[in-house]
């Protein structure tokens, strides 16, 4: 008997995912204010935001998403794919409170693997005292440390090391079995 296909899961418990739209522009400035330097910066000016949105819509598999927790906008995620043949995507994630974002980020990761035949997700986090919650967040949702790029980032004009974190589809399958079988694919 064939196994049943996993259903889409745009919301679970208090977490929800919504495609990024023009109406989400005010969130960008709030996220920029809350995000430590070096993680990422979103286009805050209205015109630049609309250009960014258009660019994302032209990029396959960008999965630009607004994250919600308890009905409130709480974060932004997108994917960036270098070469499609590698089936690997870089995750950009910004959250108003990364310390509480694990449930919605795990939902987003599940959506990424559910929507696209991706084999691997990865991200970089510059290592500063302010970015510790981001490294913890990615580790909480199953990402594994793959090393440190020495001095690659410039944060506040200073060279900083960068943590490299990766998550294979099989890592996520295993993570779901342990942490939340409802997310399993």
């Amino acid at each position, binding site marked *: 008997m064939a196994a049943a296909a996993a259903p889409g899961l745009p919301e679970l418990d208090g977490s929800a995912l919504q495609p990024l739209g023009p109406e989400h522009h005010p969130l960008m400035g709030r996220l920029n204010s809350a995000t430590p330097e070096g993680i990422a910066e979103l286009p805050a000016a209205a015109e630049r935001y609309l250009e960014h949105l258009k660019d994302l819509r032209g990029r396959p598999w960008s999965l630009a998403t607004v994250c919600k927790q308890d009905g409130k906008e709480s974060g932004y995620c997108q994917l960036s794919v270098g070469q499609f043949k590698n089936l690997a995507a870089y995750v950009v994630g910004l959250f108003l409170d990364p310390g509480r974002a694990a449930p919605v980020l795990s939902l987003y990761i599940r959506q990424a693997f559910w929507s696209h035949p991706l084999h*691997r997700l990865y991200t970089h986090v510059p290592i500063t005292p302010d970015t510790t919650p981001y490294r913890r967040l990615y580790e909480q949702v199953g990402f594994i440390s*793959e*090393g440190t790029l020495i001095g690659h980032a410039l944060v506040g004009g200073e060279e900083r090391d960068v943590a490299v974190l*990766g998550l*294979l589809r099989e890592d996520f399958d295993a993570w779901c079995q342990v942490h939340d079988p409802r997310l399993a694919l």
Partner: protein
Amino acid sequence: MMQAAPEAISGNWTTLEPLSPANRGEADRLGRIRERTPNLGGLAGQQDLSKRFGAPMLIRENRGGSAIGLVSNGEMIGYPGVAVILIYVDPEARPGIAMEAFAMYVDHVFRQGARLAHFEVLAFNTPVLRMLAKIGVREQARLRDQVYAGGRFWDVAVFAFSAGQYRGIRARYARILPGGERPPAALGGRPQPPPGKVT
């Protein structure tokens, strides 16, 4: 302001030539060989080719004058001053000879203002990994299953060094690096046959 045309860089065994109409045919031929070779020597997806530290160049062997490879770089996206260096050498080229071309190009990239030289090696490229270990360049990260090449996913090993670290490596290993007293095969190519053995 008009920018001066890049000049060739000459070493003992190889010369780096800027790509031009004169060597375009040779570069295209190497590009076609490269398309059939799983070892791409780097990841084009992570660099911004519109920002780079010096022009791409063709590697020419001094003895015989054959074009044997290509070197280029682009700034790593999100990391100002970090040059991702790509090198491709025809697998039929004389063993070890690529090391001189690589060393000259790294020098060139630092002279052009790069803060760090970053390069990535596919996990099956054991001769290069062995050579890097031999000269004391430490692997900084191992990207699991990052690249699909030759029919499967492969890990990618990441390396980087600053101009100062690079000078230290050159100083420690000057004897076997370009300009030293050892032949190119001493840099990690195929072993020399024992004396008297015909291969």
